[in-house]
């Protein structure tokens, strides 16, 4: 189909009627932005494919703003050699008219809905169910019209019509409508069974059947388990019943045994009574024997004790004798020792001690007298020193000399006086008189010192110059005055001191001071000596009377001896004393030794006395005990006569008891065998029987319980349920097999058909890919040498020269746009083999650079040789070298055909 003319009115910017006619090759629809280029294409699309009475918002929006006049348009197009005109009015009083050109004129062939439908049929489009038509309703034009605001490429595929359109150039035939219908049926069935991921759909009958099969299986497992437990119960019944039978048998056997044992117990009763009689006789004999044996034992024991006591007594007596001998010897020793120290040594010692005391008194007396002599000398010396000091002090007082302080003050004052005088002298005004006439007397008042004619004055002075007059000199100021006062004051003090000490001069005063100092030094020396003496020999005065007293005492002690020994020297006396002390020590030692001996003897004596008492006591005790024992034995044996008789009696009793015991033991043996045994066995059997009965009772209970369980299980209809479920399971499993086969068959069919379709599509895409690749190589100047086109005739990528492929979406926007334009152009060219088709490019190459645009122009030129192209652009100059028709769209909507 190609379009020859489009007229529109009240359509968006086109308020007035405008007509645009098109050539069969390239048509450049040129105009500025918003001039209305896209509106013209919209009119073409809506008139061709939309229902005239559509109320969709897209249709309503077409109306020119500010007017209520209906958008109206008509399109003249040729298809299959026939020229048609379709005119539609939308919104208000909508209408649709299809005209066919016949013999130079148009004939109305359809109106209204029929006209709408017929146009769509003629150009191979698809009716839209409701609302405005979409790009995929445009049939082959879905691919050939590349309009603004539309996606560059469809999501999945082009309208099927594009395949029909290409049918003439491609050997492989496209699928027939029946093929497509079957494909869609297969797809529909497939989607009922499988999910998009190829898994079985949960809602499919197959899954439901599988689920049911699983349920049945689970239920069967449960029931089988119940049945099994029923079988187990049955088996346990068998076991329990056989156990009962065995118990019954055992019960019978046990009962027989019991009756047998009862008989035996009865027979044993006689033995028991005999034994019961013999018992007390034996017992009394045994008691008698025990008593006799005890008596015999006691007598023998006492006899043995008496024997041992007798021996003990003898030994005690020997000890007592020895003790007495020792005691006598010890007493003698004690007395001897006492006599030796008391009667001999002690009087000697007293004598020596007396002589020794006298000698010592003499010795002390001598020493005391010596001390008294020395002390008297010290007292005399002290007295003489004290007198010397008193005398020295008297002399110093008489001297009348200045003290050290006074002397020092005086010296200082004297010094200050000299300094003051020097200052006065220095400050004094020197007045010299050089009189023309010498010899004139010059008399200062007050007088002033002078050297020659030069006077030194220290106060206002009036010079009376002889023959001249008076000259008054004032000056020196206040300081000189003060200095002069100082000198005066100091001199007064110095002179006062000298006067006080009656000295004529400082030198005299110094002599006085020197004298005073020497006197003081002498006193100090004597004082030092006295002090030393006092400190070394203090208390001498008190000591002397005491020494005198001591001398008197010692004299008294020494008595006459003192006179005897007055001629003997101290040394000799010392020697006598030492010798006497030695003798004394000797005597003391001797006394000590004797006393010790005496003490020891005394101690030994008391020990011996104690043991004597003890031995005597022991001997008495032993003796008494022996007598007691003897008496007891006598009493005991008096019953029997003698010990031998007692022994005989015991022997007799022993014999008798032994005999009795043997008899009882004999009977006892029978007792264990014939009485106890049966009794024990009877008791055992009876308890066996009761255990058996108990066990049987338990088993009976168990049997009842198990039977109840079996009845309960039987009441659950397990068998029927199992068989029903098994039957259903068979049926379901067959159903599952059938459905599985069907589902897989369907899946296989789908896969196979799709694979075949893929193969067909690949065939289809080949010429498209070849043409687009060639053009793209041209446009990119050889940078790319191929475009990959899939079975749906959609570009998927571009191949660089050198083989590397780039996915379409990775290409730049402009390049991608160019690929899309080329694909659409190629589809246009290839589908125009039999009859030209219209390719619309609504301003789609704005992103191409000038070089590419130029190359694209050549491609467009080539394509325009095969199909009709309407290319909308803002920039007509880009295509100025391409032969074609230029159609200007006026800016103000007032433009027209060129």
């Amino acid at each position, binding site marked *: 189909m190609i379009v020859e003319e489009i007229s529109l009115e009240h359509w968006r910017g086109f308020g007035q009627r405008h007509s645009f006619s098109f050539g069969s090759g390239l048509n450049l629809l040129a105009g500025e932005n918003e001039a209305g280029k896209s509106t013209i294409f919209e009119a073409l699309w809506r008139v061709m494919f939309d229902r005239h009475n559509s109320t969709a918002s897209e249709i309503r929006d077409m109306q020119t703003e500010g007017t209520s006049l209906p958008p109206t348009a008509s399109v003249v197009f040729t298809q299959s050699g026939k020229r048609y005109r379709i005119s539609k009015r939308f919104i208000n009083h909508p209408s649709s008219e299809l005209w066919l050109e016949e013999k130079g004129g148009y004939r109305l062939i359809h109106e209204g809905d029929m006209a709408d439908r017929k146009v769509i049929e003629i150009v191979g489009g698809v009716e839209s169910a409701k609302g405005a038509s979409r790009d995929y309703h445009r049939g082959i034009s879905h691919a050939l019209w590349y309009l603004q605001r539309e996606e560059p490429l469809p999501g999945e595929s082009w309208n099927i019509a594009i395949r029909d359109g290409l049918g003439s150039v491609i050997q492989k035939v496209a699928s027939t409508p029946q093929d497509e219908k079957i494909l869609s049926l297969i797809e529909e069935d497939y989607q009922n069974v499988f999910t998009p991921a190829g898994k079985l759909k949960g809602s499919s009958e197959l899954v439901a059947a599988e689920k049911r099969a699983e349920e049945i299986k689970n239920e069967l497992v449960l029931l089988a388990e119940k049945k099994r437990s029923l079988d187990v119960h049955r088996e346990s019944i068998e076991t329990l019943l056989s156990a009962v039978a065995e118990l019954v048998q055992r019960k019978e056997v046990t009962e027989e045994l019991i009756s047998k044992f009862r008989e035996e117990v009865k027979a044993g009763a006689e033995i028991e009574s005999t034994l019961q009689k013999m018992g007390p006789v034996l017992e009394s004999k045994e008691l008698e024997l025990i008593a006799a044996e005890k008596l015999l034992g006691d007598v023998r024991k006492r006899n043995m004790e008496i024997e041992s006591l007798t021996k003990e007594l003898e030994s005690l007596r020997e000890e007592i004798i020895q003790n007495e001998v020792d005691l006598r010897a010890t007493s003698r020793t004690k007395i001897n020792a006492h006599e030796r120290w008391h009667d001999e040594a002690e009087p000697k010692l007293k004598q020596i001690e007396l002589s020794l005391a006298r000698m010592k008194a003499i010795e002390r007396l001598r020493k005391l007298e010596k001390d008294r002599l020395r002390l008297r000398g010290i007292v005399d010396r002290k007295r003489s020193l004290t007198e010397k000091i008193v005398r020295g002090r008297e002399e110093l007082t008489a001297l009348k000399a200045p003290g050290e302080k006074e002397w020092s003050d005086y010296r200082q004052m004297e010094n200050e006086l000299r300094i003051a005088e020097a200052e006065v002298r220095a400050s004094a005004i020197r007045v010299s008189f050089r009189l023309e006439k010498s010899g004139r007397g010059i008399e200062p008042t007050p007088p002033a010192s002078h050297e020659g004619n030069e006077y030194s004055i220290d106060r206002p002075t009036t010079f009376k110059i002889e023959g001249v007059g008076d000259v008054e000199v004032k000056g020196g100021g206040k300081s000189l005055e003060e200095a002069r006062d100082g000198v005066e004051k100091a001199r007064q003090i110095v002179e006062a001191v000298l006067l006080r000490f009656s000295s004529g001069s400082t030198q005299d005063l110094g002599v006085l001071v020197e004298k005073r100092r020497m006197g003081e030094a002498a006193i100090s020396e004597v004082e030092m000596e006295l002090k030393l003496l006092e400190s070394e020999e203090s208390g001498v005065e008190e000591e002397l009377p005491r020494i005198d007293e001591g001398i008197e005492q010692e004299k008294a002690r020494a008595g006459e001896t003192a006179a005897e020994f007055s001629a003997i020297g101290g040394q000799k006396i010392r020697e006598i004393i030492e010798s006497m002390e030695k003798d004394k020590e000797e005597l003391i030692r001797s006394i000590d030794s004797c006393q010790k001996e005496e003490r020891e003897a005394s101690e030994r004596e008391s020990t011996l006395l104690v043991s004597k008492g003890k031995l005597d006591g022991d001997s008495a005790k032993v003796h008494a005990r022996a007598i007691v024992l003897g008496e007891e034995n006598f009493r005991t044996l008096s019953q029997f006569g003698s010990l031998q008789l007692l022994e005989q009696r015991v022997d007799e009793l022993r014999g008798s008891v032994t005999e009795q015991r043997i008899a009882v033991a004999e009977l006892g043996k029978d007792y264990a065998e014939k009485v106890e045994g049966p009794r024990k066995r009877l008791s055992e059997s009876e308890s066996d029987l009761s255990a058996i009965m108990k066990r049987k009772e338990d088993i009976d209970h168990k049997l009842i319980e198990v039977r109840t369980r079996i009845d309960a299980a039987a009441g659950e209809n397990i068998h*029927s349920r199992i068989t029903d479920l098994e039957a259903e399971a*068979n049926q379901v499993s067959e159903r599952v097999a059938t459905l599985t086969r069907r589902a897989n068959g369907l899946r296989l069919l789908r896969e196979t058909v799709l694979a075949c379709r893929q193969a067909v599509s690949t065939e289809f895409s080949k010429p498209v890919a070849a043409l687009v690749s060639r053009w793209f190589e041209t446009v990119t100047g050889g940078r790319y040498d191929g475009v990959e086109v899939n079975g749906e005739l959609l570009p998927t990528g571009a191949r660089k020269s050198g083989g590397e492929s780039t996915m379409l979406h990775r290409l730049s926007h402009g390049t991608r746009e160019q690929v899309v334009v080329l694909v659409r152009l190629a589809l246009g060219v290839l589908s125009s083999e039999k009859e030209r088709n219209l390719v619309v490019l609504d301003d789609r190459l704005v992103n191409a650079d000038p070089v590419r645009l130029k190359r694209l122009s050549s491609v467009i030129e080539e394509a325009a040789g095969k199909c009709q192209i309407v290319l909308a652009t803002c920039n007509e100059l880009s295509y100025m070298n391409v032969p074609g028709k230029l159609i200007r769209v006026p800016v103000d909507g007032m433009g027209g055909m060129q």
Partner: protein
Amino acid sequence: MVKFLHTADWQVGASSTVAGTSSRELRRNRLKVVKRIGREAVERHVDFMIVAGDMFENHDVDDMLVSEVVGVLNSIAPIPVFIIPGNHDFSGHECVWERKSWKGVGGHVRFLAEQEEISANEATVLYPCPVHQKRSGLDPTAWIPARGEGDLRLRIGIAHGSLDTISDLANFPIDGKRAEKAALDYLALGDWHGMKIDGRTAYPGTPEQTNFGEERTGNVLIVTLHGGSMPEIEAVHVGETRWLDLSRDFRESSDVAQFEKELKEQGNPASCVFRVRTRLLTDDVQLIDRLRILRHSLGEEALFLDWPEECIRPITLDAQSIPAGLLADAELLLAAPGAGTRADGVGAGTREYTAEEVAEARYLLRDYLRRTDR
């Protein structure tokens, strides 16, 4: 003269797994038949009834079923009923006969678990041969004593087993000459599901068929004995369910018509279990549709129908009926050897397909064509 009803192999509780979800219904039919037997016994004024084993399918039968049977038996009182256990319901501990539900049976019903002579009435003695285990190679009738001198009573043996004329391996083999040897007037047998009458020895067969392949089923025997002469035996049909195993080939529409007629002649399909196997030797679309409709309606009416959908497909796949193009290409691939396997390379990208699945795919392709042709 004595008249009694001889029956056996009620197999109460039996159900067939081939009958799918109709298994329950089959069990109900069986009870219906038991009631019918009771009615026959009453209406025909029999002296007593003999059940020669396998009254119950097994010891696990539902209590409800046992109770139902007890109810039927009690309803025919005071007609005595003599029952022996068979190999399905043999006597033993915890057998069905020990069940509480069975204990409710009236005094006119005697369960004969011992090999001992029983008086059915003054003139008739019974020799029951009860079964105490599932299998045995011993003849249960061997104990039946010979007729005593001057004993003029009617002697009836009751046993459950196989007449040893068939195989040495038979379960509970019964001497084929037992009736003669023991001078029995009648040997009432059970075990075989098909009715068989051989002189004084007879199997009534099961009164209600249990599966496909059983013949001469659905009867009980009304036996009349006169001393010395051969017994008079009348078979009375009491069966409810019919088991129909049908195989047909279809070439043209008249074959379908014929089949429809046959089905109609079978009577009420609601009491029939069908197993239908058909082969289509044509791809006549109309014929196929007709069969489909028939299958559908039969499925609605029948007690149970086993007629796989695959049976209603042409057995040959005609490649020429597929128009050239996409679908013909697909058929070519599917018809090729190894189609649907990995080696195929087309259509087997994700999995392997069985030959049946490949055939299914080809059938589906034709089915789609058939559907879109219209």
